[in-house]
């Protein structure tokens, strides 16, 4: 049943070019803006300014500083992207009046939630990986030698990204099951990215340096939260309430 729901969701997504485009627009910005900025700074900034940055960041070049500190943005993406889809998952079915026929089938709550969740995860993770690969290639091209991906980048994109995507998605499904307006659900679920954005800002300000240990602890915490959230999502999926409440 999960596979059936997943296949249908992906088919619908494939037929929604505008939604796919909207999903790709944020990653494109996250990739293009820093690379373009770095290229401009390296081309136009005076030598003394570049040397000053290197001095402030303990001997790292401006390219290395930007590359390493930009990683949290690629952790925000996999949380944010599935929210675009998952917040619509239950509320969207209600709006299109497809929820009642779906709930009238023998499909279990778990298979509906898993199918919809995986359908939101797969494109989010793929888009994040593609964006990360383009970012690494772009940065290396601008600075003229191979800097990325380093260990933190590989761990962050290959291990943390899927876990965070599942987290963002599960949050969206939980919110979508309780807050019945898909737009409100999307807005509420999107607040999940705020802690990570905060980390990014603090790190870019040079107040903290997030190392491999931080990312491993984060991965373990997120994996635990993912399991808990899927359980909560199934528990909160109240079929009667979904068919009767409209606010």
């Amino acid at each position, binding site marked *: *049943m999960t596979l*059936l*729901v997943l296949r*249908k969701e992906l*088919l*619908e997504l494939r*037929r*929604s070019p505008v939604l796919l485009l909207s999903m790709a627009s944020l990653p494109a910005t996250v990739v293009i803006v820093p690379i373009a900025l770095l290229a401009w700074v390296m081309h136009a900034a005076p030598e003394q300014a570049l040397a000053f940055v290197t001095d402030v960041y303990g001997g790292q070049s401006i390219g290395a500083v930007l590359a390493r500190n930009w990683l949290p943005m690629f952790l925000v993406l996999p949380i944010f992207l599935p929210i675009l889809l998952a917040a619509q998952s239950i509320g969207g079915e209600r709006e*299109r*009046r*497809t*929820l*009642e*026929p*779906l*709930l*009238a*089938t*023998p*499909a*279990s709550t778990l298979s509906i939630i898993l199918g919809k969740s995986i359908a939101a995860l797969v494109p989010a993770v793929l888009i994040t990986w593609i964006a990360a690969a383009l970012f690494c290639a772009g940065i290396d091209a601008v600075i003229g030698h191979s800097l990325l991906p380093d260990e933190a980048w590989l761990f962050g994109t290959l291990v943390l990204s899927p876990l965070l995507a599942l987290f963002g998605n599960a949050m969206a499904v939980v919110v979508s099951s309780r807050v019945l307006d898909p737009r409100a659900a999307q807005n509420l679920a999107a607040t999940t990215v705020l802690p990570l954005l905060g980390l990014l800002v603090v790190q870019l300000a040079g107040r903290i340096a997030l190392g491999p240990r931080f990312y491993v602890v984060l991965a373990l915490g997120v994996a635990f939260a993912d399991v808990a959230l899927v359980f909560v999502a199934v528990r909160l999926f109240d*079929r*009667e309430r979904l*068919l*009767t409440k409209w606010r």
Partner: protein
Amino acid sequence: MAAIEVEGLTKSFGGRVACRDVTFSVGKGEIFGLLGPNGAGKTTTLRMLAGLYAPDAGTAVVAGIRIPGGPELRRRVGLLTEQPGFYDRLTARENLKYFADLEGSRRDRVQALLDRFALAEHADRPFAELSRGMKQKLAIARALVHEPEVIFLDEPTVGLDPEATREVRSVIAELSAEHATIILCTHHLDEVERLCSRAAFIAQRVVAVHEIRREDLLRIDLAAPFAPDGVRAMCKSLRSSGTSLFIEPLAQVPDIVAALVAAGARIEAVAPHRDPLEEAWLSLLADAREQGLTA
């Protein structure tokens, strides 16, 4: 043997009673109407019988399974929802196949139903592009895709143009000919008269179950009240109301009239008469209003 036995079903939402003490039964192969004004609790009753809501009180057994029943009940019932409820970007075929797969239907069912409902030609068009009538036929096909033992049709012709209404009604008539067990939920009296063998008037609770007569009765108006005992043997049914007799004749009409005259009755008029559902409906509705069961 009853396909559906409903006893005292009650359901409230946040203190608002949707239906109360609903009781009726539906025989195997019967088309049973559920009539009632908007907000009378028809859809709530259907949703409970389809396993979507759990009742607050009362019981019901549908196709041998006690509600709410879970996946096994949902496998045995087909539900036509009030809105067709399909995915706009998927084609008619993809939509039907999705639900067929979720129901675990036979592989050939989708094409068979597309053919049966004359949708095969339009099967590869996006659902959003289909006409309202086609959408409704596709929704009926979905309700049948897993060959359910019991079919619930919630307002099957609401919002349809006359042509589409006729098509949908003919589909229901076909199902009737195939001895499907159906509950038809509607507020169109003529639909019930055409399609159902019995109907329950529901206004939060079942007010009455009415047998639908298709054949005309004979109405004999008399000059004065008269005990028609002498002609009972000539009638399948006989009911007197004031100075009128309503007869379902077994013998020829002139013979009945002659027998009445011979027994001393003074006849003023003889005419065919239909037992209109509308009269019974309006009278029951007025009663329900008096009891505060409906607005």
